[in-house]
């Protein structure tokens, strides 16, 4: 990453009639970054992506991609973007080959360049010669990935890209993305699968009900969320209070706390208790995500 901003979204708001799609969303994505865009279904991820691609026009706010206004330079920007929609759909009357040839023609690139992608994603000639309506969801998703990556775009916008891929193929796809990142490609990765975002992304924006409720590096998010501490006492000691930790679960002798501050006072308090066993774990993004949602609800 060189600090150069590839996407600059500034106070984006989109209303559909009276109902709100997204509300005052701002974020930047740097060149060579894999940027996670996390949120549950209906949070506003797809609306944001469609505004980035000039498919939807924002009610207010502005987006710049490659330092150019999306509305004014839509065509030029899309030449340098690859996009995989959340519900990828190809023309049913075309074979995979024909569909990709059509996309190649529109992108103005030679179709032959895709052999390596076909090999990596295990798409055989017979798969490619089937009508797209005959392909399984996973196979179709591979076609979608190829059409997004076939022209070596400077920016990849991926909306729930691993839907339908089996675990092995997901790993291949992650490798491909990391290789693209090495080449300097910027990747905007929308997902509700937190573990893959954790695996790939350098920074994450968390979106909820159309608003960005968190925007951190993945590491910072984890640090903020602290660690999960699980211990077992000799018997049930009732509700416990530990400075610098927040109780999340208590069942009989088993206690689960989330560490939010320094660990020294926690250990000091534990030393006073008849602890039979104890473990510390870093929380996954799932836990962080749930905490973000819980915090927002509390507010």
């Amino acid at each position: 990453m060189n600090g150069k901003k590839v996407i600059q979204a500034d106070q984006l708001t989109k209303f559909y009639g009276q109902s709100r799609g997204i509300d005052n969303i701002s974020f930047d994505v740097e060149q060579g970054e894999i940027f996670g865009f996390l949120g549950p279904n209906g949070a506003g991820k797809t609306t944001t992506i469609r505004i980035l691609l000039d498919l939807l026009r924002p009610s207010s706010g502005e987006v710049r991609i490659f330092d150019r206004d999306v509305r004014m330079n839509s065509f030029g920007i899309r030449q340098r973007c690859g996009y995989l929609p959340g519900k990828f759909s190809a023309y049913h009357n075309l074979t995979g080959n024909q569909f990709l040839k059509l996309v190649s023609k529109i992108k103005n690139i030679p179709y032959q360049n895709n052999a390596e992608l076909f090999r990596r994603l295990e798409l055989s000639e017979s798969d490619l010669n089937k009508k797209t309506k005959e392909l399984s969801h996973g196979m179709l998703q591979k076609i979608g990935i190829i059409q997004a990556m076939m022209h070596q775009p400077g920016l990849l916008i991926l909306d729930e890209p691993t839907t339908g891929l089996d675990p092995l193929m997901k790993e291949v796809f992650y490798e491909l993305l990391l290789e693209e990142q090495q080449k300097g490609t910027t990747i905007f990765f929308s997902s509700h699968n937190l573990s893959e975002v954790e695996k790939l992304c350098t920074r994450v924006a968390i979106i909820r009900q159309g608003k960005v409720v968190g925007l951190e590096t993945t590491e910072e998010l984890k640090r903020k969320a602290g660690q999960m501490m699980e211990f077992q006492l000799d018997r049930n000691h009732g509700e416990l209070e530990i400075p610098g930790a927040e109780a999340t679960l208590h069942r009989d002798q088993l206690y689960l706390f989330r560490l939010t501050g320094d660990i020294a006072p926690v250990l000091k308090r534990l030393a006073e208790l008849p602890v039979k066993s104890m473990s510390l774990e870093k929380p996954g993004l799932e836990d962080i995500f749930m905490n973000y949602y819980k915090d927002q609800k509390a507010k």
Partner: protein
Amino acid sequence: MSYFRFIWKSNSGFTFFSMVFIALFQVMILYLVTTFDTQAMLKSVLEQMPPRLKIFLDDAFFSTLTFDGAAAFGFNHPIVLALLAIVAITIPVKHISREIESGTMELMLSQPFSRKSLVWKLWLSACVILGMIILVASLSSILAVQIFHQLHVDVLIKIIYISLNIFLLFILVMTYTLFAAVSTKGGGFSGSLSAMITLILYLLFFVGKLWDPMEVTLHFNIFNYYQPQNIMLGNGSIFRDTGILTGLTIILLVLSWHRFDRRDIP
């Protein structure tokens, strides 16, 4: 594969069917006219009709059942008009409304493919498809006239005028369907709307011809500017009809560009 080829591939089946059907239909009508004394037969039917209907049918159909008139009648038969209307309505609905609904439009417009270019290429492809069907219909008419009768230069020119007239009429039908497709949400609504408008205009055309109080509506009816029998009888207003149909098409095409460029997808 180019976008033109894609549109052609998606519509080739029904296009071929329409070509073959209309071509055979033209040949069949001209064959019937040479085989039976249809004029005498139909004249006796005509005598039974109320006076107003008699004048209309005489103008529109029966007096033209001379051999050359039959060639024009082939272009004005409801089956032929219905087939061409289906082609004209289906293409924009399939490639705009249905694609918006299925999500392929979102994918296409995320590519370096401008909205104006998409509308223009789709419109042009539909023109080519309609043009091909009408060309085959014209050639079959010309061929049938030559086989069953005798082809004169003036008849040839009149068939070319009629072909141009019907081509412009259905380009207009296709263009207002395109406008409906780019203005409405995805799905089949634009097709239903366009079919309904076409049918109502067609019915109003007959009502206007048959009922004096409604005659004024003919000026606002696109079917009034499609007059194959009049062209064949030498009474057509080809420049007026061409001007009005072309003008309306251009206006609707520009409005379609404008609307599609500004709308949200989906």
